[in-house]
């Protein structure tokens, strides 16, 4: 299940949903990304996520399907927020449910790595003095590439 939304999400509610929907779950792996307090050494005031409506849903479905093809999963949840967020706010949620832990953990890791480089989002960070579009990190590309093996 994928969702692209402005509103916050609840890890707990999503876990409950997954557990209701699927039987025989043995492993639940989750990841939550959160807005940090700082940009380098400056205090961060806000982070605004711009996205490409339509393409976002398309890419999230693609990433989700890729995970389902690669691992033996029972269910997955991907929620990505957009709009203006404050330090401490949740940005993204990934949950993978499977019978055994390896599948849940690896697929959750995979999904967040692919979201970093393939999710059509752009982050604008505001500090007291200035605003910055966040550059993509070369490390994120390397993290993505490790899943090509």
């Amino acid at each position, binding site marked *: 299940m994928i969702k692209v939304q402005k509103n916050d999400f609840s890890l707990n509610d999503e876990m409950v949903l997954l557990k209701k929907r699927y039987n025989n779950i043995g492993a639940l792996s989750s990841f939550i990304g959160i807005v940090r307090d700082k940009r380098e050494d400056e205090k961060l005031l806000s982070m605004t996520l711009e996205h490409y409506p*339509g393409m976002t849903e398309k890419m999230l479905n693609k990433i989700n399907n890729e995970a389902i093809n690669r691992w033996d999963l029972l269910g997955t949840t991907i929620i990505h927020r957009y709009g203006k967020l404050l330090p401490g706010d949740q940005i*993204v949620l990934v949950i993978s449910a499977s019978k055994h832990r390896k599948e849940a953990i690896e697929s959750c890791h995979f999904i967040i790595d692919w*979201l*970093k*480089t393939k999710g*059509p989002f*752009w982050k604008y960070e505001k500090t007291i003095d200035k605003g910055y579009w966040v550059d993509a990190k070369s490390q*994120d590309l390397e993290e993505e590439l490790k899943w090509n093996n």
Partner: protein
Amino acid sequence: MKVLYFSWIKDKLGKSQEEIQIKDNIKTINDLIILLKNTNENYKDVFKDISSIKVSINMETAKYEDSIQDNDEIAFFPPMTGG
């Protein structure tokens, strides 16, 4: 043809989208970029280093040499920073 811009590209151009009439000689993304660069200095500045700019055709990641048609939706954006 609908053309969308995101992130700093949108800021530099001062717009998030526009309708562009393309003629028969515009066959690829590369052709479209040449057309845009000839419009004014803003476009010239944005597209001066296209290695840092990604493109999509109808919401699918694309390459500069890919063919385009009049009813396509094209978008230009910097590398994605999701998650």
